[in-house]
């Protein structure tokens, strides 16, 4: 790592203007658990970093009616410790718990997990399933995008020069719905997902049919995906093992994983099916 410039702005406006002025040359630093690793490996030619740690207003939770707003700089470990999140968004807490190691979780932020745009990101996947809205501040003011529109490719987002992700909003899921996050790896901690899956099932009042299904999968394509076909196949259908199996098949058909040092494409494809089915069974939560 050679010499670089370093800023610690005290407010969002300053942070945005430093980032906007220096354009491609500088990067925002949140927890640094992705950024510093890349810099140390010499994978970057950035000339400077803007440490966002002074922007305390981007940290923590705000509850308003049916919506929770999570500051982009909120640490992953803070998600685990939050009782209301455990109550309403258990899948988010499970994903947070599965991320890295205690040391990493104490540094890593929710915003960093999204902006890094890794297809394997755990917390980001659950936010995709919960249909988060992302609040962005930039040189031309603030804007909001849906998480579905946020990713452009692996490591790439719609963020423009000088833009900072400020908050993530999620609405309380429908009553009686249940969200589940499953992660597949070779060990139980310090593991980048070979495959991860987040699902949500909302039953019809009689609890025999599925009113709504959401299925998000990671590590099986260049970006994380919602699998519409699989979701649609479940809508208004009876909750049966074979319905879940069929949905899992549709997920397998929709993905396009790769071979790498961590696993093979064929194994990942099989696992996304197994995990989806298991997650759906778990989300339904009753004998089938």
């Amino acid at each position, binding site marked *: 790592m050679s010499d670089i410039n370093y800023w610690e702005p005290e407010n969002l406006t300053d942070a945005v203007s430093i980032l906007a002025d220096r354009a491609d040359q500088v990067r925002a630093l949140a927890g640094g658990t992705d950024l510093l690793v890349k810099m140390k490996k010499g994978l970057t030619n950035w000339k400077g970093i803007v440490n966002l740690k002074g922007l305390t207003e981007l940290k923590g939770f705000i509850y308003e009616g049916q919506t929770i707003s999570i500051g982009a700089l909120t640490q992953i470990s803070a998600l685990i410790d939050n009782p209301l999140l455990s109550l309403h968004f258990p899948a988010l807490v499970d994903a947070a718990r599965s991320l890295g190691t205690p040391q990493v979780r104490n540094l890593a932020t929710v915003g960093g997990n999204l902006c890094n745009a890794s297809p394997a990101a755990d917390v980001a996947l659950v936010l995709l399933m919960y249909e988060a809205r992302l609040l962005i501040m930039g040189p031309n003011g603030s804007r909001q995008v849906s998480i579905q529109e946020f990713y452009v490719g692996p490591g790439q987002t719609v963020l423009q020069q000088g833009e900072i992700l400020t908050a993530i909003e999620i609405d309380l899921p429908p009553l009686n719905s249940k969200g589940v996050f499953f992660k597949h790896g*070779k060990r139980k*901690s310090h593991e980048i997902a070979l495959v991860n899956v987040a699902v949500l099932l909302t039953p019809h009042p009689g609890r025999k049919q599925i009113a709504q299904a959401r299925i998000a999968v990671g590590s099986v394509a260049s970006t994380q995906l919602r699998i519409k076909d699989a979701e649609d196949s479940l809508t208004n259908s009876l909750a049966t093992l074979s319905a879940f199996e069929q949905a899992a098949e549709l997920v397998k058909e929709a993905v396009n994983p790769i071979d790498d040092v961590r696993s093979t494409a064929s194994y990942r494809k*099989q696992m996304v099916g197994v995990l989806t089915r298991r997650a759906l069974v778990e989300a339904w939560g009753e004998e089938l």
Partner: protein
Amino acid sequence: MSYSVVGQSVPRVDAREKVSGSALYTGDMMLPHMLIGKVLRSPFAHAKIISIDTSKAKELPGVKVVLTYEDTPKILWNSAGFPPSPGAILVEDQYILTNKARYVGDGIAAVAAVDEATAVQALELIEVEYEVLPALMNIERAMSDGAVLIHEAEKNIYGHTPVVIGDIDAGFADADFVFEDTYYVPKVNQVSLEPCGVSMAAPDKDGRITIWTSTQMPHLVRSITAHALGLKTGQIRIIKPPVGGAFGSRLGVVNEPIAALLAMKVGQPVMLKYTREEAFLATESRHPITMTIKTGVKKDGTFTARQLTSYIDGGAYATHTPSLAGPVAGWFLAMYKSPNIKVDNYSVYTNSTQCGAFRGYGNPQVVFAVESQIDDIAERLGIDPLELRLKNHPCAGEVWLWSGWVIESCGFEECIASGAKAIEWTKKRSKIGNESSHQGSKKRGVGMGYMMHVSGARPMLHETSAAMIKINEDGTANLIYSNSDCGQGAGTSLSQIAAEELGIPFEDVMITKTADTDVAGFDIGSHASRQTYSGGNSVKNAAAKAKQKILEMAAEMMETPVSELVVKGGRVWASNKSSEEPAKSVSIAEISHRAHFGSHGNQIIGVVSEEPPGNPPVYAAQFVEVEVDTETGIVEVLRVVAAHDVGTAINPAIVEGQIEGAIQQGIGYALTEEYCYDQESGKPLNPNLSDYKILTSVDMPQIETILVEAACDTGPFGAKSVGESGLVATAAAIANAVYNAIGIRFKELPMTPERVLAALQNKNK
């Protein structure tokens, strides 16, 4: 026998400094004017170096010295830490910096600069022109016709270790069944918490050089480094501060000669500290071995012939490999009795990082293969696997073929009995493929593996150890020992042995926590599970000598013959004849004071330098229960019962810690760990802890250790060994449990989810 300090789980002598973070490791040290060293590494697995231009690097401000092959002594050497001995086969094939790259990471040049950033920048300014040669990444390619030569060895084979006992052909002819299977075990890394390769060298004005290094063997590193540099052994002083784990990785020279050469050229101290990635790239790991085992057996389970042919992938330099071929043969032939045995081990060069020592030294590889096949044999013969092992293992009173010496004590039957009971062998083994939760996709099984191991390396190697006990004026004792404790707790056990023998409280013994070759006598270091047995014997004998002098002095003071005196609790007591009189005693403090300042005027000191009296083998039986997820291929180890015959456990907590820690490595070997190379380019694919999968604390199963203390006569207070043996049988036990769960025999490690799932799908086709 009842002891007062031996057998107690006293806290380790280095516990406080380590848990509080105040222990100073080599990498924490700083000297005035200290420079930072860095090594330029080959990006190619096999390449001739056509030219190197260091001029730009030398011009960079802050760079003090840049070295290449041109600047290194033209002395071929071998880094493996062996004393000159019958079993040390030392092929000398390396230079401090190479003139031909033989693996990705091979050291081409070295720099020392005022700080790390400058040193790194200097590396980038060195211009090297390479002529790339084919990368031979496995033994098949390396041994193929017309393969380029990595060194001057025909077909890249540089060692053949044959053993013949009896008549192997007659043995097979005599058999009712003959089994022949080929097994493969991968390259795995020791992954000590402190990355391997940390040393700091400081030259003085008298032509000597002091090297602080994270090593397992200060004295041998001294002589090997001296040889590589063309110095006299006495010109080097090695200091070994606390070491953050070793597991064999520091069993020899790592990077000390590079640090020393840089420091000598520039006349300033140089710190050379490898990163985790460099520890993967450029330091020694466990040998991948391809083993074919052929076994002839009678219907009743008697072995008529046992044969092993193995190809040991030693990587780019010889280091330990031809010597390791000896123990590989030894482990195999000594495990089970058979009148006819044949072994052929071949050492093969490939373009991967050189392999060396890793806890078990070839034994985990051999035991995985042998114990896998034994289970298959037991199944075919319809004999309980436990019975087959009990029938064929060597027992106390018989000659152990590893050493050629009579086995002193054997706790194996008890290991089997207590381990089987704890895991509920009879109940659980009967239910093959036991189903459990999750839509019937998970299947459980139990399995076991057996092993024997050494308590030193005699007679293969000289096992010299030296210890000195000096009794201070206040009755406390210094134990001066080349203490190569690398985290296993040997320094504590040795202190307990000294306290027990002297008859003083444990707290009153102070061992030299830092080893210093200018201070302590010659000791061959921490290896072969030898510290407690071999080192312990010399410590005990040094203490006995000091105690004898204490008694003689006490006899004078108490006017009682030595034969009527005993030492206990820091005092010498006269065994009083008539019980009416109160017991007479005098404290060791008083005795020592009298020794120093009375009419004799000499301090009580006991010194020995000697080889241990033997090499008693230890036994273990490990039992595991696994659950195989047949939809994902994930094998989860639910429970491990590790029954180990260790002789007397000097410190049971330390012994249990050694076994539990080793099991973590054993499970990794079985399921998750494999250091991989791109087979075409030879580039390592996972030289980091994200992609090289060691198990974390939450992955660990419940472990039950059972200590079977079959004490031996020659060990200090009956101790044998435990350092390495905890992982030797683990992978075999897991493979056998997986077989019990799903009926599939894995002959290749690790049993990754991908491989297990593929095998399940193949089976169901």
